[in-house]
């Protein structure tokens, strides 16, 4: 803050006092720091030292330093560098710097640490051109000064007038302002919602440059859509379309603006337009539809919103908590709809405790089944080269092996299961698991690798022998992928067959090239994967059964069941939410 001519520092102090009343709280703290940082001793100094020199002013750097208190301590530790001229001055006189210029430089150095631009503290008030010049000259990279300064203004959310004074200074100096500086200024305006300024900047840009680029359009659209001139944002969106595909945040701003002003039709038009452009709508867009349609009538509108729910279903998107509330409130606000929403958890049987409705089961249709098995064989097992995961010969052998022994009830990933407890021998782990699962008289298939047959410390031959009486075993080559075989065997065995592994199968899902099949794969996985873990007492193994109901947004016409996430963050695709919103229509 040593931006003020020395003569007026004290006056500024007084001003700061005054401004306490009008400035936001966050500023207040800084100001307090500034105005109370004058040590008592120094006040006395003012009386005790009287010099004839008019320039010998009490210059306590702290006094002019309006850095936040937190930062001050850091700087105090680092910067004990007195100006050379003041070095010789004895302790008690050190408040008097020998020349104004030196004092200025001194305090400049505390405002601008030499290594980091992010610590540049923008001034609190508009400055005169010469003051800016001074600052600029003291800055280590003068050509970057405006940019750095504006960046920091954006960071500190400085008053817009300060930025204006900087622009004025730049304009006077160069007769022109660079585009990137304008964009930065625009960012500041957008942050503070200065609509008239945004318009002015747009007008200037329009005249000065033939086209604008995406960044500026994004900012302009976002800034204007939050104002009463939101229609202008729409025209800007049209303009932006000529040179690029607008980002989804542009659409988001426009759609939210339109729906805020109850122009639902327009909002939905924009929404479909962005879907047609292959943009993935943000959840905020979808949520805003529900928020702003609250209490509105209209069959068409209802259909559109139901379509959004189906969109969630198709893409296996789980809304987060706040979004879920928007949906619930919208349903309950439908005039004459008699919808009631409740939050609940679905039982393992797949029954909703609130409306006693049985949820959709997780089974795929015959067509989906055959489709998925085909894709698994084609993309996961063979891929670009069959030799990458197996070999044609081995795969054929496996196929005949499975066909001769079909159908299995449970397919086990032997190696994965064998690692369940690190303290135990691997073959014992597998033995426990096989025993656990064999109790129910199920037909088991265990997949392993050939090295399991070699008698070693981890794989005892006797135990392996015993296991082979209880389950069928297939040993793949040591350098083959056994997971692909696991998927294939399970799919071949049919709907009732489950598989056991702790693997999330992400890499196999990634082999499937299109999202439709990937979703299908996930659905199938949810319904057929048994996950196991050591039980709490550390003795046995516990299994998490596969879901018997499907975990997606679903409806029966007079009920809706919507799974939702607790937090906003994206869940992994293999995790499914346990909480549900049950909405039923009381007729």
């Amino acid at each position: 803050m040593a931006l003020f001519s020395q003569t007026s520092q004290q006056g500024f102090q007084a001003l700061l006092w005054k401004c306490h009343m009008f400035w936001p709280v966050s500023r207040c703290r800084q100001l307090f720091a500034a105005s109370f940082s004058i040590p008592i001793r120094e006040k006395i100094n003012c009386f005790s030292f009287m010099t004839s020199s008019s320039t010998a002013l009490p210059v306590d750097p702290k006094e002019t330093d309006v850095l936040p208190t937190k930062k001050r301590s850091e700087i105090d530790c680092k910067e004990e560098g007195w100006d050379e001229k003041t070095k010789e001055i004895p302790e008690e006189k050190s408040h008097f710097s020998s020349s104004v210029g030196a004092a200025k430089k001194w305090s400049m150095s505390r405002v601008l640490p030499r290594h980091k631009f992010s610590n540049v503290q923008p001034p609190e008030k508009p400055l005169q051109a010469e003051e800016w010049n001074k600052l600029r000259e003291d800055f280590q990279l003068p050509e970057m000064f405006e940019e750095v300064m504006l960046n920091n203004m954006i960071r500190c959310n400085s008053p817009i007038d300060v930025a204006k004074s900087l622009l004025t200074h730049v304009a006077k100096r160069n007769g022109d302002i660079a585009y990137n500086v304008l964009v930065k200024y625009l960012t500041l305006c957008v942050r503070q919602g200065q609509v008239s300024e945004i318009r002015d900047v747009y007008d200037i840009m329009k005249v000065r440059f033939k086209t604008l680029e995406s960044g500026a359009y994004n900012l302009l659209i976002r800034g204007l859509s939050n104002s009463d001139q939101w229609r202008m944002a729409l025209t800007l969106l049209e303009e932006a379309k000529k040179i690029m595909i607008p980002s989804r945040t542009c659409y988001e701003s426009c759609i939210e603006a339109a729906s805020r002003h109850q122009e639902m039709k327009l909002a939905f038009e924009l929404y479909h337009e962005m879907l047609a452009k292959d943009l993935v709508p943000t959840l905020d867009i979808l949520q805003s539809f529900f928020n702003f349609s609250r209490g509105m009538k209209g069959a068409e509108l209802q259909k559109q919103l139901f379509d959004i729910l189906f969109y969630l279903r198709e893409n296996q998107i789980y809304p987060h908590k706040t979004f879920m509330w928007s949906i619930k409130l919208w349903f309950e606000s439908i005039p004459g709809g008699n919808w009631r929403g409740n939050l609940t958890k679905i039982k393992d049987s797949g029954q909703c405790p609130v409306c006693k409705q049985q949820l959709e089961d997780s089974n795929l249709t015959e067509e989906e089944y055959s489709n998925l098995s085909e894709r698994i064989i084609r993309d996961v097992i063979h891929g670009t080269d069959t030799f990458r995961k197996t070999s044609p010969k081995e795969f054929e052998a496996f196929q005949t092996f499975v066909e001769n022994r079909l159908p299995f009830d449970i397919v086990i990933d032997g190696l994965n299961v064998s690692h369940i407890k690190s303290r135990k021998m691997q073959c014992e782990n597998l033995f426990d698991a096989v025993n656990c699962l064999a109790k129910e008289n199920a037909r088991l298939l265990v997949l392993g690798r050939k090295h399991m047959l070699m008698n070693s410390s981890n794989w005892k031959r006797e135990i392996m022998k015993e296991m082979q009486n209880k389950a069928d075993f297939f040993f793949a080559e040591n350098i083959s992928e056994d997971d692909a075989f696991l998927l294939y065997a399970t799919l071949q065995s049919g709907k009732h067959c489950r598989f056991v592994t702790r693997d999330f199968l992400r890499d196999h899902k990634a082999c499937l090239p299109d999202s439709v099949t990937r979703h299908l794969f996930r659905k199938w996985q949810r319904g057929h994967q048994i996950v196991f873990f050591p039980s709490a007492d550390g003795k046995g193994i516990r299994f998490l059964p596969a879901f018997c109901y499907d975990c997606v947004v679903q409806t029966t016409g007079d009920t809706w069941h919507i799974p939702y996430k607790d937090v906003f963050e994206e869940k992994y695709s293999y995790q499914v939410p346990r909480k549900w919103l049950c909405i039923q229509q009381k007729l």
Partner: protein
Amino acid sequence: MQCANMLLRKIVRSSVLPFAAQHGMKKDLFLLSRTLSLSLCLKQDKACEPSEKLDLDEWKKVMKSGVQEEVSETVSEPKELSSLAAARETLEMWRLAGRAVPENISEEELKTFMECPSKSAKKKYLKYLHLKELHKKSHKRKMDEKRERRLEAQDQASNTDETKKSSFVYLSSRTMDKVYHWRAAQSMIFGQPLVFDMSYEKEMSVREVTNTVKQIVLGESCNRRTVDPFHIHFCNFKDDSLYHKEFVKHYREAWDKLLITVTDQCYTEIFPKDKLVYLTADSPKVMKKFDHDKIYIVGSMVDKSIKTGLSLARAKRLGLETAALPLEKYLLWSTGAKNLTLDQMMHILLTLKDTADWKKALEFVPKRKYCGFVNKPVKELKKTLDLINTLKTGKGMGRSRKAICQKPPQEVYTKAKVE
């Protein structure tokens, strides 16, 4: 700030502190002004507003006025730009906005840019061009400086006016080249073959292919300079493939004079199968020592996206023996993929061939990828390493695994290593 001063002056004149003002004792004035500040709060004054001098919207006027002339020239003609010109405009605006965009861009590059499938691909391509441009510029600058220095040195030398006659036999680079060529020619007849498998073009992007060729060129040049070079074979090499184009770009007319064997045949057709060893990082077998009777195959592929098992699949299909470098055995691996660049491979193989010293050979593995050499096999050091890790992180392997068990099930990769 003047506003504050003016305000003060007003106060001063308004009889509060006449004596102070007259005497010019500003200290007193300021001191008193501080006491006055409270009363200032009560006044609704205009001190906060900028003074008349500072017109905040002046920049707008400047901008608009400065533009008037330009506008008269370029009355924005509402004609449709061609897509190329439009792209150029966009790039220019991005550059002004301070993005990483090259200043000059050729038609060809512009077309490549427009063919990029996604926004992020476009961004990456532009950044690449931008960096390339910067490198070029700095290189040029350095060259200019060097030239100036040389000229200065020459001036000084001419001043001294002494023709230095050294008694050393002067070896010109041409002589050296001749020696290298003789050696390469010898290796063509007697040298141990080293095969580069050129069948990966389909699996690579254009940029990966160019990088591959660059690496091979580096490898070839260091092979030429050794005492006992390999006889390099490019197998499965298709003429007018992308590889070919890139090689010609690098070697120009020297391409046809290179002392290597280039063939479109597969290595299995040229060499006996039992002598071939395919080097691949995915191989379960670890190379124990360099065998002078074997013919090693290196897959010429740069793999920026993780395509595991491609070269292993090739070897499996042809039923060839495979091997991986014993990186685990000799190095404490820290980060990075175990697949090395082709020139590094070349260096390592050449060193092995000459010295059979693994430690020396593995010097060519980038230093960032490992922490140090190991005298004992890593397996025996496992306990020590675990201990070190325990001390570092404050939790041991066993315990952390236990913690995992109580969490929701985690993915466990259970790919047992084959000894």
